[in-house]
């Protein structure tokens, strides 16, 4: 059990409906080790400034204001970011308190962090929203500035352990992973693993993106990607 009782957060958003099932309250943590150029929340990337340290008990009380909507819609709380794996101790304390009340807890991660952090959070996580951008290490490093190996390893671990509690989310970025080769790679990688509960394609859009390159993909590209991934017999949905 973790001992950290604080989380550095960027924001709490209520009434979110696209970060897991039902009506959710999303806690955006401050700080991410990656620097994906299409990131919609670049303000959450640096570990400081921008974050506010919050005591876990206070945060629990605050988010619980919406518990009735979680219960009646099959929703709950989503820990997002930033990168939750960076604050696994505090995150685990937070989720443990919510889980103790029977609430549904999601963690939304890019998967770039120590396996131990995954294991620590996994105890209290009802559903993982796992971001898979590419299976090409070089491309990943170039676009996001990190090492792909722990990402793939963490995803493998989770899918082998509890694939039914994992949604793999693929951001579809123009000029980055919307070509056949990239998508084939992702489909091939997933084909060798237990089937996740859901595969979601998140078509890129320009909202919130700091850079000058527009990541928006065409609808036809999305349909192609959907077909390619479905070929691997996976449940795919496109989240516009």
């Amino acid at each position, binding site marked *: 059990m973790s001992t950290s009782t604080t989380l550095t*957060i960027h*924001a*709490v*958003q*209520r*009434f*979110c*409906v*696209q970060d897991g099932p*039902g*009506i959710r309250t999303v806690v955006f943590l401050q700080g991410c080790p990656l620097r994906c150029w299409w990131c919609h929340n670049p303000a959450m990337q640096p570990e400081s400034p921008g974050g*506010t340290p*919050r005591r876990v008990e206070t945060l629990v009380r*605050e988010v619980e*204001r*919406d518990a*009735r*909507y*979680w*219960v*009646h*819609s*099959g*929703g709950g709380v989503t820990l997002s970011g930033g990168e939750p794996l960076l604050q696994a101790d505090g995150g685990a304390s937070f989720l443990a308190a919510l889980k103790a009340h029977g609430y549904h807890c999601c963690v939304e991660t890019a998967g770039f962090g120590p396996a131990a952090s995954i294991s620590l959070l996994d105890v209290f996580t009802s559903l993982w929203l796992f971001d898979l951008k590419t299976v090409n290490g070089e491309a990943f490093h170039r676009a996001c500035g990190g090492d792909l190996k722990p990402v793939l390893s963490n995803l493998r671990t989770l899918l082998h352990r509890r694939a039914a509690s994992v949604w793999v989310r693929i951001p579809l970025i123009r000029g980055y992973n919307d070509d056949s080769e990239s998508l084939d790679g992702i489909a091939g990688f997933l084909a060798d693993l237990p089937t996740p509960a859901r595969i979601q394609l998140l078509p890129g859009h320009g909202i919130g993106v700091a850079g000058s390159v527009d990541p928006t993909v065409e609808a036809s590209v999305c349909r192609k990607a959907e077909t390619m991934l479905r070929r691997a017999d996976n449940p795919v949905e496109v989240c516009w």
Partner: protein
Amino acid sequence: MKHLLKRMEDRLFSATDTVCLDRARLVTEAYARYADEPVPILRARVFEHVLRNMRLDLLSNPVFAGNTSSVPRAWMLIPEFGFDEDAQVALEHSELKGFLDGKIPPDIRVFWRDRQFGGHGGIGHMSLDLDLVVNRGLDSIVASLEKRRDDLPPENRVFREAMAVSCRAVIEWAHRYAQAAEEAASQTDDPDVAVCLRRMAAACRHVPAQPARNLFEGLQAMALVHMAGVIEGQGMSMSIGLPDRALARFRSEVEDNPEQSVNLIRAFLLRIASNSFLGRGSKTQAITIGGAAPEGDACSAVTLAFLDAFDKTPVSDPHLFLRCHEGLEPAVWERGLSMLSAGRSMPLLVNDHQVVPGLLAAGVTAPDAWDYCIVGCNELGIPGRCCQSANSIGMGFNDLNVIDALVRGLPDEACNTEYVLDAYERRVHDLAEAGLTARRARLAQYAAERPFPFCSALCPACAESGQDLLRGMRYPDLYGFYIRGTANAVNVLVVIEHLVTRGHHRVGDLLAGVQARDPKILETIAEAPKWGDDNDEADRLAVALNVCRDRALREVAGKAGLPPFAVCHVVRSLHHLDGRRLGPTLDGREGGAPVGDSIGPVMGTQSNGPTAMLNSVLKLDAAQWFTGIYNLNLTLPAGAQAHPTVIRGLAEAFFHGGGQELQVNVLDANTLRKARVHPERYQGLVVRVAGLNARFVELSAEEQDELIRRAEMASGLTGRVA
């Protein structure tokens, strides 16, 4: 049938507003002819004269009989109440402003000049006992009215005689339709129309005199009696009550022929929509379905058929309320949710578990409380048993008006929330006492001079005792009390606490800043917490305001020997009219701008999203403070945030937590903008404004702007709190 429905729809909605003088002329003639009769007999004979001689319109709706004027949207006038303009209709449809100017013939105007009564639309806000009509028929009522009642005082016996005359007049009116429909059927070239007319003729020979034998006859009986009530002079907010209960006997017919049943109900809705009092203007004829009865869920196949019919027919008046409770039939709930998600703006939702306890606490018996319905915009009624809780002789006030006047009259050193709330309570007390005196005088005047023998006959306790509905209904003492502007008033209190008491601003400076639209002052005010955003400080003051009002009103009602007033926060479009009469206020509101459109936050002051809004409203004890109901608008953007599971989560959590009423509008600002430019393409777009449903393309620019703004704000609805 489908092409016929489409034709009826087109004919109704494409009709322009004109005036039909049938009723006005006939009433004027009959008032002169029967002037020497006792007033109830006079009223009954006038009613009879109208029904015998008005033109029947079989063309615009050959399926159901029951027109109020000779062609759709030709205004039916009620001269015995006057020719005053309906300010809300003029606001909602700017082209109807001053519509009647120059259209009342001088002889009619002169006749009524000396018989001034005021108002323009009767008492309204009630539903007749249509269950009785469908399942027992008017003949049975006439038979019991004709029994000698030597135990009653002579004036009550006269009133019973007037009721019998009125009921017989309606039966005779139905026979006129039967005759006319037979003739028209033999003359038409359209075989479908001929079939419909023959069915109408056969039905009108039987109902509403006798109990209905099938769904069609049940609907026909309801349409005729409802419209007859309107023609008698209940122009405003006559409502249909609980048709799925009244027609429950025909559930297996509906199960066996779902499509045909839905089509019949669609034609029925179009017939009700053709009520031509105020032309295209809203009459707020509510229909209520679903809900619980003491023995359990009251839904049936008829309930679902009504939902389907509303889904397929773009009527805005009648509007549909669905009574929700924990055991609501899942298929009904799912159908309702999918309609809301698709942007139909109906059904409006009301929670039995909050409404029924409020009615019980006001002395209504359990079987009656479980039989409540919505009347008008969203007020409460019980078919044939109560019309006092909500009617056109309302008492009430605008909270913002009261608080604003108090604050302006105070020196700065005395301007703190404790003092203001104390003064508010005393002011409410005085206003309620004065309102009660005025209301009682007006009620007596109505009962003496403008009784309604026909509508009273459809209220069993009145028929029994021979009294007018304002005196003899089963619950004659449930006095409604209308409240508005509460959200703004709370925000004024917050400003006093934050900026005046703690921030040492001067009230005069703040008000001057608001008047001058000083950006600095407005920003300072905007930063103060706001009601409706789940802010505990603001919400605490909302609770305090409601406690004060409740205490004062209970004291006044108690002293008068009355049950607690049925307080309702009901708006329709009055938030605009209230606002026009009010200068700038301490909550930052510009002089003349509308006040809040529901019990929820003032538009534009909310930042934490819909769950926060609902949480705030849940801090109000609805069953205690709003026994007459509140209205709550929730606008969601089309798309994921309006998915049926999301609406279900919001509505169920809200109702489970003690919420009372919820009006879900799913709007898309772009669609609304397009509808404005190409109205011909968006004829079916029905929206919930504040307290009324309307076809968007028919609304005034002011109301359209308000909805577009609301839709724009809803698109950024996700609430950020830290």
